């Protein structure tokens, strides 16, 4: 996953096609994150002025959704499913092992819809079924 570094021109270009969409704030934040890897503070002001909503409205949406982040992403994004179906096949133990190895690059997720082949881990967007520390290591290297 490669992301651009922040520039107001690039951000304006990202937002421009969304101007015809009704209720554009969430899709605007998603588009900004897709482009830059996170939502920089400047983007909040830009989205507010582009779509004629208050900065508070944009901030409210930004802080509601777990997916949206306000800091640059780390080298690897390792999401482990800690919902019930994966718990039933040992995701709690796997979570401990992964967090020891990969520290804050690991975050919890609730269900990837791979509930018959758990534990499920998503590494940099790639879904791993019947995940083990070895399978995760294979993707992270």
């Amino acid at each position, binding site marked *: 996953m490669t992301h651009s570094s922040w520039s107001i021109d690039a951000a304006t270009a990202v937002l421009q096609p969304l101007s015809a969409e009704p*209720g554009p704030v969430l899709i605007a934040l998603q588009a900004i994150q897709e482009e830059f890897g996170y939502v920089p503070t400047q983007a909040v002001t830009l989205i507010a002025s582009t779509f004629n909503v208050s900065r508070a409205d944009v901030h409210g949406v930004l802080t509601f959704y777990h997916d949206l982040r306000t800091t640059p992403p780390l080298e690897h994004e390792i999401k482990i499913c800690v919902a*019930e179906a994966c718990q039933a096949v040992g995701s709690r133990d796997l979570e401990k092992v992964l967090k020891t190895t990969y520290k804050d690059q690991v975050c919890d*997720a609730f269900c990837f819809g791979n509930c018959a082949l758990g534990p499920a881990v998503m590494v940099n967007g790639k879904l791993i079924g019947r995940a083990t520390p070895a399978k995760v290591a294979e993707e992270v290297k």
Partner: protein
Amino acid sequence: MSVIKVYIPGDSAAVSVGADEVALEISRLARASKIEIEVIRNGTRGALWLEPLVEVQVGDDRIGYGPVSVDDVAELFASQFLSGGSHSLCIGKVSEFHWLASQDRITFKRVGLVDPLSISDYQAHGGWVGLQRALTLSGAEIIAEVSESGLRGRGGAGFPAGIKWKTVLETENETKYICCNADEGDSGTYADRILMEGDPFTLIEGMTIAGIAVGAQEGYVYIRSEYPAAIAQLSAAILVAREFGILGSSVLGSGKAFDIKIRAGGGSYVCGEETAMLESIEGKRGVVRSKPPLPAISGLFGKPTVINNVLTLASVPAVLADGAASYKSRGVGRSLGTQVFQLAGNVKQGGIVETGFGVSLGELITGYGAGSLSGKAIKAVQIGGPLGAYFAPKNFDLPMDYESLVAAGGMLGHGGIVIFDTDVDLAIQAKFAMEFCAIESCGKCTPCRVGSTRGAETIQRIIDGEEFEPHKRLLLDLCEVMTDGSLCAMGGLTPMPVMSAMINFPEDFENRVGGTK
């Protein structure tokens, strides 16, 4: 020699256990042996423990091999699998494989069978017949057929689809919407995802029929961001459908307009609640709305809106194509038609089981599921997602239909069944239910926002071995407040897993000493 068709699922679940690598290896070895093959990335048949399940077209049959790993491929070639040769991984003719053949696939009839983005394949397997028939009927006639079929909301609430549609039809407004709820956040459920990846045209057809029926020209599909492959596949299918004149200004040349947009979720469970979903599609915080007004009267952007789950809408083409009588000949009592059950968690043969309502829980778990994956005894099953009840093996004769589950203190939800072996600690699961609610609560109403945190703390004290009785009384009282006082199902149903765990597994709560049993 003609080109040999080889089906290798492109479904996320199959890919998560190596289907892409297997597809590459099969292509490579076929090239090396100068055998001409066509690899088709179909959806999964739903027998997920067999994934990657490779199927080879031999005459009129498809011979299955699974689960295939990259290391098996050379051996499969040596066994002449491209002409259906025998091998220890061979399951024979897929159409005669008992696990699949004994199901009654209506909503899922094309999933795994067809090339998901091939419109000719879709048509060859009965696609668009329902839509064509709908275009010859009035809106009221379409809705009468849907009502007559007994089809109820498959998202969890089980509300009759026809009544919802009728309300939207009868609410006058120039602009109306069809919203498909594909925010399949319940752990243990994945049927929406598999359908969108494996047979996306069925959902498009169902939404289009809904649009024609109620007079809506625009539809939204709200898909959770955890399903990137489903988003990609449905987006691609929408483009194909536009190209072939299914979607657009004149659906199949009828002069009636309908088109579909996709919105991705933001990783919030509560956005699966229908009014929170509307807020999210409108680009706002996913905060639950008070009802009334019902979304059917004032929904998306304040307009009359049909909100249905993926499986509900995907069942509509079959209802229109084969008629209401055929659909409602399945099922029991007021639970008519088929339910797409999903076996998940610690299960040997996990996957999709579509069959008429009324099948017993035990038949699903010990029959289709073949028991636990670990080989240990099954201790608990949770039915209907994180807000559903925990049951014990003594409940295995329970018939799986809306009413029987409610009578037993549970709910069918979206049809997911999560299986746990004897390693599970139900007090920990009860605490998780409260913690999950605390994380995912939208925060609008106090019983959910505060109650969930207090609930988790109280259960922790029970786990720590503090005196059980007073904490139990406190928890029962709290659960009553959450059930009766919450605005939506998030806070209102979180007590269900908690209470059912306490009632059905009292031994996990009583007499604990310092965090152990």
